[in-house]
């Protein structure tokens, strides 16, 4: 590899190779969850994470780069079971950005922070020459605290766990893509960007026995499940029919040749829980407006290790692998 390609940022296998080969070993990072859990910081357990947002276009149906930057970092903290508290914001602005657009983004960040019950406590602003960035890039870092007894990690899924998916897949990726390319889908598709902390709080107040949890963003549901199967050394089987997909997303994927399992999300989660509490937890989750369509989509099996199997709608079976390169449309 001589140069970094766009595929290295896709969330799929190339990015995993980049992180595994160059980043994680260089900084001695051992667990690759959505946030780091730091024990014994002044007698507390703290979750800490960071994420950068470079979405194009910066405004899209259902959200914008501002709300995305808050919700994304809030959700990363939630996925290790933390209660998000504080966020910092770094802005990299391209010379020439209209002030009105900046105002819109900042106002959206303010609303998103309010909605997610987090405070933006520090920030930084840089401006670069025209052409050296694309309108605006945002980095957010976040801190949250963890209650005792919570131990959630992508490496803790165990055989028998049921897998709960909180809502329909593919909305964010298709919404951004439709705005970028000027496609109109029927019915229209909106990004699902939203904070999941209230949902997670309700889940954790019901049970602390959640083994693994992730929000399937870049790389989609398929890549997230494959990551957990690898990290936990287990197999996973899911049922295609049980995975909710909105009609607009389904139509868009049919036309463009996308597999919705690989399309990005920004407001759903998968949780791995013991079979005896799965149904009750599911009932509890469905009371939250962000998880009305929550479903049990599959379970953890012993073998084959590190493999995700899909029971297809017509009763066949196939393997689900990690996203490879970027998902591209068909050309014939």
């Amino acid at each position, binding site marked *: 590899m001589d140069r970094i390609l766009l595929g290295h940022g896709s969330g799929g296998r190339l990015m995993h190779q980049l992180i595994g080969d160059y980043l994680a070993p260089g900084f001695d990072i051992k667990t690759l969850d959505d946030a780091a859990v730091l024990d014994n910081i002044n007698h507390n357990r703290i979750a800490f994470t960071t994420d950068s947002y470079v979405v194009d276009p910066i405004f899209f149906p259902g959200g914008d780069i501002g709300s995305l930057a808050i919700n994304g970092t809030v959700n990363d903290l939630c996925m290790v079971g933390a209660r998000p508290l504080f966020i910092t914001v770094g802005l990299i602005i391209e010379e020439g950005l209209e002030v009105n657009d900046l105002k819109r983004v900042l106002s959206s960040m303010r609303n998103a922070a309010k909605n997610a019950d987090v405070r933006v406590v520090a920030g930084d602003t840089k401006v670069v020459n025209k052409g050296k960035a694309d309108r605006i890039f945002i980095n957010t870092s976040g801190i949250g605290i963890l209650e005792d007894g919570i131990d959630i990690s992508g490496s803790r899924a165990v055989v028998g766990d049921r897998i709960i998916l909180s809502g329909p897949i593919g909305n964010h990726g298709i919404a951004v893509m439709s705005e970028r390319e000027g496609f109109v889908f029927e019915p229209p598709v909106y990004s699902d960007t939203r904070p999941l902390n209230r949902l997670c709080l309700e889940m954790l107040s019901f049970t602390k026995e959640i083994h693994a949890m992730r929000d399937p963003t870049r790389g989609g549901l398929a890549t997230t499940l494959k990551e957990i199967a690898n990290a936990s050394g287990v197999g996973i089987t899911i049922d295609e029919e049980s995975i909710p997909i909105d009609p607009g997303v389904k139509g868009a994927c049919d036309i463009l040749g996308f597999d919705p399992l690989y399309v990005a999300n920004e407001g759903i989660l998968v949780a791995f829980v013991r079979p005896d509490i799965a149904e009750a937890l599911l009932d509890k989750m469905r009371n939250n407006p962000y998880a009305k369509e929550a479903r049990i989509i599959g379970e953890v099996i012993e073998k084959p290790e590190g493999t995700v199997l899909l029971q*297809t709608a017509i009763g066949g079976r196939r393997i689900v692998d990690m996203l490879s390169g970027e998902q591209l449309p068909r*050309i014939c």
Partner: protein
Amino acid sequence: MVNTELFKDPAIANKLSRQIRHYIRGPLRLMEVCGTHTVAIFRSGIRSLLPEEITLLSGPGCPVCVTAVEDIDRAIAIAGHPDVILATFGDMMRVPGSTSSLNEEKAKGRDIRVVYSPMDCLKIARENTDKKVVFFATGFETTSPSVAATTIESLGLKNFYIFSVHKLVPPALTALLSASDVRVDGLILPGHVSTILGIRPYEFIASRYQMPAVISGFEPVDILQAIYMLVLQINRKRPKVEIQYSRVVYPDGNPKAIRLIDMVFKPVDTNWRGIGVIPESGLKFKDEFSSIDAEKNFDIDIPLSKEPKGCSCGDVLRGVKIPTDCPLFAKACTPEHPIGACMVSTEGSCAAYYKYSGTDIG
């Protein structure tokens, strides 16, 4: 309006699967010519519903896979001109040429863009009048009518060109069926291409080569039904070309689209990656359109192109080998670092085998 859910119905799929098992009389090698079929077959898990006797082989119907190395090299050469914006379909970006790919050239700073429709290029050309915009046009009869329409639409633009490496499906089937090492008992023909061509250009398959063939749709039930129809044809020993995808494919195809192709393009002998030159199997511009023809307007002399060593794409595209027979498969050649084009395209058979592990999980 057709209820497409019926074509994903597990009860109907199961019934067809049982019928196929009931009627099959011995081992059969069936080739799905089109890459879209290959992906649909893997994605819906059809292999796990078929009896052991049936071997499905992928054919040459993946336009990315069959684009010759020298054509990739030429596109890279065109993109190297400082005042050029090269536009192409997304799948072409990662196809390795002799030494580089369009993706790598883009990372080096060349202006190379992905478009979803050839018409998108006209907008790019109008917005960049100080640049020359070149569309690298690949694809079969499904794509060439829209490129022909774009050509006509673009007349009057002074900065727009097309590099056409379009290919034709029927001549490739002729080459396939006349090769002595290709062993196939029936063909699943591409539904999309047939919406343009209709049934007539395929009739030689049965009349000249006595090969059963069914034009199939892309939903799981479509494909299972096409396989069932092939099994019955093979049992009756009366080969013909049938249409399973009758809700979309008409016997005469789309005469308007065919006229558009004929107006703009002429058939020429063309090199197919890994397969070789097939007579009258490509489409180049007629002389009256030479002002738009990138090959007539750019200096694209390139050094002799090299096929990658050890790559079995050619045999895979002809159904002589399956991807796992290739010594490079999943070792030196992976979707992240593809050596052959069949590993690049989302519709390439090697990529499909890799992604879905090529195993029949029963």
